[in-house]
């Protein structure tokens, strides 16, 4: 049986229903379109359908096939009547059987929407007053178009008609219309669109902050969903900055969003910070916190820091004003890798970043609106297991001021970040590195080298011994090589911290080199 039929007389629906029986089907969904007794206020006593049969048959067949392919259903059929119909007659019948009900519902909906939209069938209505009229197909709302838009385009949906209503906050005496105008003019950069970033972005967008910048290089992972409330299961694998931008556009279309799909680096962080009035640091990376702290101090742009650990969190506002404390006033140096726990290693309960992120949003709004805040500066410790918090005032005189001041510390920090950034060099083959004047040093273990020799003149110092044997290295530029670029990167940074600025690491290691010609023959 074909998937689409035109019928000039009433059809046996039981037969159509039986034709869709399928052993693999657990659900059946049907739609019937009936002749109604009125149209746009005029009483109708019957109608007449006229079809361009050849074209209608071909197009109808195509529509049902599209639905079968699109939703993976087992069987589907659409019957459309032509000729004269009375009130209550079945004008169109669609049936779909599939393994699960959801596809059946959706395929059924797809078919009726497309039929109404695409089929060359005209409807002549017979009105009770004896008049008749051919009725044009009005615009059809097609649900599946909106499914697609939801996935890919909702940032671009037209929402010109939306007028934000901030009355619930402007009625606060401290906010008012003047405060709302301040928010509309404000530009806030949110670094990290994860557990902390989601509530920050949601509340700042909802409050009507005029411009939001979002920095995040990650794609959504299923393990993010327990705490990252901007996203849902359909979003997995997509860039968080794109997803967040779409959600913000849906939440408050009047907010302008700028996205950065790569982490900021020493080459652009100062310039990017300069485009904003305030930065909210929401990453799960201590290195990023120090980096943001240094850039905030050097640009004078306030920074709101928070971080979480399992059931607790820390919150600090760095005003970046002369004499006010910064992150380095508490912990002068970034702790060695692995010292500070992350959500991945230590675990975290979803609402914990929700609470701390909400607190960051409050601090952000307080600063933007110039709301009353305590005169002193503090680190807030929040323990959500026992419901306690501790506010520890920070004495700036006991911090960076004891060793050159926050600005000096920030300069040193940023210079180190710049140096670390320059450590990794990309070469497609080792001959190019040698031609560029680099002495090669293989820092792999003996067994790795035996399995995959470099085939280029090189010195061998295993990475674990690189510090103590640094004296053996050439005075000129040195390129350290390992399997993936990880060990060589760490080793290069260690050597640089020992005063050897000419040490570099092969980005991506041996794995990133182009295969040798003599090995890929055949």
């Amino acid at each position, binding site marked *: 049986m074909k998937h689409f039929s035109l019928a000039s007389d009433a059809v046996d629906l039981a037969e159509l229903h039986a034709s869709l029986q399928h052993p693999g089907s657990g659900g059946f969904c049907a739609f019937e379109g009936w002749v109604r007794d009125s149209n746009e206020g005029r009483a109708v006593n019957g109608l007449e359908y006229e079809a361009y049969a050849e074209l209608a048959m071909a197009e109808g067949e195509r529509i049902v096939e599209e639905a079968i392919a699109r939703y993976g259903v087992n069987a589907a059929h659409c019957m459309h009547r032509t000729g004269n119909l009375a009130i209550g007659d079945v004008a169109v019948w669609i049936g779909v059987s599939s393994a699960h009900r959801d596809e059946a519902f959706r395929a059924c909906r797809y078919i009726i929407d497309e039929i109404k939209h695409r089929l060359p069938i005209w409807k002549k209505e017979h009105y009770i007053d004896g008049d008749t009229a051919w009725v044009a197909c009005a615009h059809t709302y097609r649900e599946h178009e909106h499914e697609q838009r939801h996935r890919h385009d909702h940032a671009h949906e037209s929402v010109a008609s939306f007028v934000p209503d901030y009355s619930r906050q402007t009625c606060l005496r401290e906010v008012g219309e003047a405060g709302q105008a301040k928010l509309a003019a404000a530009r806030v950069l949110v670094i*990290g669109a*994860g*557990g*902390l*970033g989601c509530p920050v972005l949601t509340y700042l967008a909802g409050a009507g902050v005029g411009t939001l910048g979002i920095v995040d290089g990650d794609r959504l992972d299923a393990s993010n969903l327990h705490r990252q409330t901007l996203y849902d299961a359909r979003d997995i694998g997509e860039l968080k900055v794109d997803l967040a931008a779409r959600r913000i556009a849906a939440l408050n279309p009047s907010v302008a969003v700028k996205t950065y799909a790569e982490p900021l680096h020493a080459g652009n962080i100062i310039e990017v910070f300069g485009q904003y009035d305030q930065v909210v640091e*929401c*990453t*799960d*990376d*201590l290195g990023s*916190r120090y980096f943001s702290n240094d850039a905030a101090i050097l640009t004078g742009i306030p920074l709101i820091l*928070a*971080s*979480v*650990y*399992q059931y*607790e*969190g*820390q919150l600090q506002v760095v005003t970046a004003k002369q004499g006010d404390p910064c992150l380095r006033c*508490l*912990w002068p140096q970034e*702790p*060695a890798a692995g*010292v*500070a*726990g*992350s*959500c991945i290693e*230590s675990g*975290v309960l979803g609402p914990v*970043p929700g609470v701390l992120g909400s607190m960051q949003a409050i601090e952000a709004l307080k600063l933007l609106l110039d709301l009353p805040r305590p005169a002193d500066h503090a*680190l807030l*410790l929040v*323990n959500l*297991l*026992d419901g306690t918090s*501790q*506010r*520890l*005032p*920070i*004495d700036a005189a*006991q911090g960076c001021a004891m060793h050159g001041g926050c600005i000096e510390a920030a300069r040193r920090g940023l210079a180190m970040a710049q140096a670390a950034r320059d450590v990794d060099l990309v070469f497609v083959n080792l001959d190019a590195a040698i031609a560029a004047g680099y002495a090669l040093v293989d820092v792999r273990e003996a067994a790795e080298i035996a399995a995959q020799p470099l085939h280029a003149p090189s010195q061998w110092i295993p990475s674990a011994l690189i510090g103590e044997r640094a004296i053996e290295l050439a005075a000129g530029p040195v390129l350290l090589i390992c399997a993936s670029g990880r060990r060589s990167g760490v080793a290069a940074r260690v050597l640089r911290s020992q005063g050897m600025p000419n040490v570099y690491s092969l980005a991506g290691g041996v794995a990133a080199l182009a295969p040798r010609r003599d090995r890929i023959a055949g």
Partner: protein
Amino acid sequence: MTTVTLQYYAQLREQARTSNEQVSTSATSLHGLYEELRARHGFTLPPDALKVAVNAQFSDWNRVLRDGDTVVFIPPVAGG
């Protein structure tokens, strides 16, 4: 001996398996106290990665311990 109350956060809470405890110590400074606790609980963090507060105020590590002090050792945390 000095009796002090300790509050733990983050990794320290995890490693001590409690968020607070009262201890009698022969240590006279915060440094000495931390080394004693480190040995007892197996804390992995070195003291220079920590900030210390006594009676809700950040404190110098060389501060002399007094009976009844409430001491908090605070590591930076990274999660988000």
